[in-house]
């Protein structure tokens, strides 16, 4: 069967790609998409450890469910903030959102 390490490496690769995207994207929407990738990598690790090491009554899967719910909430709030900023400043590029700087 498929060894545990391969699932963990898949999670690490997805995390690294999400990190790269979050660091390089100019648009806030692109950064939010990359953060979704990072959260999915965390979910893969949680479920992998739950399967291979075991745990009390599916703790890893329950935690992954919580991560999904919080990811949904954060995506909603993030995208609404993007739309509110766009309405006020007519841009979604993060380097133009600098009116809090002096």
């Amino acid at each position, binding site marked *: 069967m498929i060894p545990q390490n391969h699932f963990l*490496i898949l999670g690490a*690769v997805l995390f690294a790609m999400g990190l790269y995207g979050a660091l390089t994207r*100019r*648009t806030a929407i692109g950064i939010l998409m990359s953060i979704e990738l990072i959260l999915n990598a965390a979910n893969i690790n949680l479920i992998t450890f739950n399967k*291979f090491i075991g745990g009390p009554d599916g703790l890893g899967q329950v935690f992954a469910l919580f991560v999904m719910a919080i990811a949904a909430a954060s995506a909603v*709030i993030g995208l609404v903030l993007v739309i509110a900023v766009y309405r006020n400043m007519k841009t979604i590029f993060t380097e133009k959102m600098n009116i809090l700087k002096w």
Partner: protein
Amino acid sequence: MMNGLIRQLSDIVSNYGLPRDFVVQASFYVIAGLACVFAFGVVAMRNIFHCAVSLALCLFCIAGVYLFLNAEFLAVVQILIYVGAIVTLFIFAIMLTSNIEDRSIRQANRQVLVSAAVAAAILSFFIFIIIGAPWKTAAEGTATAPGLEDIGRALMSAYALPFEFISLILLAALVGAIVIGKAKKQ
């Protein structure tokens, strides 16, 4: 031992005379590779609408990976929440904010090389740790994968309080989204 959906599918495959382990492993690596390819598309494509579609496909492949981890319920929830709701939300946000789909607009900032180096360094560090670590693995067969019934029981008994807090967070996100997103009165 595998159980669940993948087990049943591999039973069907082995009825056709194909080697079961090979088919399961090959399909896992194909799905994992597709997930990585689509994830790269999310972070590297220029048209942000294509990025959103690539994100949907990547999350679909991750749902397939959950099947190999005996987490059928989470696979279905992944498709419902992520592909069904979150990616749709991303596409709405892309549609509501104009002129970012143009290919001539640069999507990456000037830190591409540094960011790639940092990500590659962290990835190689992780892989080094993962390969070297003496993981404590349960013996084959003793770690039973939790079924849907176990998850439901856990959510309603041991983790009832975090479950309620999640509902509170979702309600707060709902109200906050309406308040922030509401247009100002002229």
